[in-house]
C-alpha cells in the first residue's frame, strides 16, 4: 500500500532515538499518522515542525498498519510564526484541536482547504494582516471544524421567529441563532453571535474588533467542549485555553 498526498504537520512525537511518529492532516486521507525514520535528526527536525505543509508519501504493508512517511517541504508555515506569540498560540490551538478532535483516516478535504487558508493568513507578516483579520478567520475555522465533524451551527435564521436579520445570539442547547428581540427573556443564558459569523457577514480575512473575536471563541469553545471533548471525558486542549486567554 502506498499513496502520496499533501499534508499539514499537526504533531511530531519522538519515537526511540531518531524516529518520530508524524501526524498529518492530509487532503485525501484525513488525519493520518506514520513513522518517519531519522525524523528527529537535527537536519530533519525543521521539516516536521507543526504547521508546515509537506508532500508526504506513505507506505505500509497493509492499510491498517502505522506505515512510514517520507516527506518533502512544500511550504514552511511554522518559521514566520515563531516571533509572534498570538499567531504561535493560534497555531498551537489549531494543531491541538485537530490532533485531539479529528478521527483518524477520515478525509475532510474542505477542512484541509480551510486550514490552508488559515495558515496562509497567519503567515502573512504582522504589518500586512493584524489579529483583527486573522483571528476572525481562526474562529471561522473552528466553526468549519465543528461543521465537518457533524456539529455545525445553524446561523442562517432565527430559531424562534425565522427572521434572517438582527441575529445576535446562539442557543447553547440547539446551536441555532436567535434575534436580539426574540432572545430578550433568555439573553443571559445565550451565547453572543459576533457579526462576522452571520450570513453575509464580513468577507474572509476582513477585520473584526477583538471583542467580537472573544465572543466567537466563546461560542465555538462551548460547542467544541460540549460535542467533541466532553463525551470523551476530555477538556479543551490547554493550547487552546492559553490562546483564548491571550485575547482577554
Amino acid at each position, binding site marked *: 500500500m502506498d499513496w502520496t498526498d499533501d499534508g499539514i504537520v499537526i504533531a511530531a512525537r519522538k519515537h526511540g532515538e531518531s524516529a518520530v511518529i508524524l501526524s498529518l492532516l492530509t487532503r485525501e486521507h484525513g488525519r493520518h499518522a506514520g513513522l518517519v525514520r531519522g525524523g528527529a535528526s537535527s537536519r530533519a527536525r525543521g521539516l516536521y*515542525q*507543526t504547521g508546515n505543509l509537506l508532500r508526504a508519501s506513505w507506505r505500509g504493508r497493509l492499510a491498517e498498519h502505522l506505515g512510514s512517511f517520507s516527506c518533502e*517541504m512544500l*511550504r514552511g508555515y511554522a518559521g514566520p510564526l515563531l*516571533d509572534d506569540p498570538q499567531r*504561535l498560540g493560534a497555531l498551537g490551538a489549531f494543531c491541538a484541536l485537530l490532533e485531539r478532535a479529528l478521527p483518524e483516516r477520515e478525509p475532510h478535504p474542505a477542512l484541509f482547504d480551510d486550514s490552508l487558508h488559515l495558515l496562509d493568513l497567519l503567515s502573512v507578516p504582522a504589518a500586512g494582516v493584524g489579529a483583527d483579520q486573522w483571528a476572525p478567520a481562526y474562529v471561522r475555522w473552528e466553526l468549519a471544524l465543528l461543521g465537518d465533524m457533524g456539529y455545525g451551527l445553524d446561523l442562517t435564521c432565527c430559531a424562534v421567529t425565522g427572521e434572517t436579520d438582527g441575529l445576535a445570539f446562539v442557543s447553547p442547547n440547539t446551536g441555532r441563532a436567535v434575534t436580539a428581540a426574540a432572545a430578550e427573556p433568555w439573553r443571559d443564558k445565550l451565547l453572543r453571535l459576533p457579526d462576522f459569523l452571520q450570513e453575509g457577514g464580513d468577507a474572509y480575512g476582513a477585520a473584526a474588533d477583538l471583542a467580537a473575536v472573544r465572543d466567537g471563541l466563546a461560542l465555538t469553545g462551548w460547542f467544541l467542549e460540549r460535542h467533541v471533548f466532553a463525551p470523551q471525558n476530555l477538556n479543551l486542549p490547554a*493550547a487552546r485555553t492559553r490562546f483564548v486567554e491571550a485575547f482577554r
Partner: protein
Amino acid sequence: MSGPEIERLIQLLGKLPGLGPRSARRAALHLFKKRESLMQPLMAAMTDAAERVRVCGACGNLDTSDPCAICTDGRRDKAIICVVEDVADLWALERASVFRGQYHVLGGVLSALDGIGPDDLSIGRLVNRARGDEVKEVILAMGATVDGQTTAHYLTDRLRDCDVEVTRLAHGVPVGGELDYLDDGTLGAALKARRPL
C-alpha cells in the same frame, strides 16, 4: 548461550541512548575483555556518580554539590540568567565558553500534545529568581521550534511583572552556513534579524 548476569548486563546496556541490542552485546563483550582497565573503573565511576551527583536546587544543573559550581562561582555574572530547556543545552553553552552568567534549567518545553504544562516545568522557581535584586536580564535560550518558542513567549508573559529585561537568542544563518542550503524559515528569520554593519 550466556548466563543471566551477562544477559542482564546486555539488556541494561541496550537501554542507553545510541546502543541497540547488538551494540550492547559488543559493549558487554568489550567490558569483559578489559575487566581491569575499563570495567572496574567504570563501575567505580558509576557508583561514585550515582551517590554524589544531584540536581542543583537553584538552577537545575547536575553537580556533586548543591548549589552547583556554576551557581557558587563568584566570577560569574549573577545579573544575567540564561534559561535552557535541558542540562544538555547548559553543557553545550559551557563547552562554547561564550556565556559567563547563571543558568536556569526548565526541564523541558510546554507541549499540549504531550501533556506538558507550566506546572511540569520549573517556571515558578525561575520567576522567584528573576524577582531577586541582583538579576537584571533573563536570556531565553529555547530551541527555534514551535514548542520552544511557545514556551519562550509564555515565559516572557510570566516575567512581565519582574523588573528584568527579557531577551532571547538570535535565529538565523549558522556559522559556515550557505544561503542556498537554508530553509525558508531560517532565511526569513535571518533577514528579519538583520543589523547594520
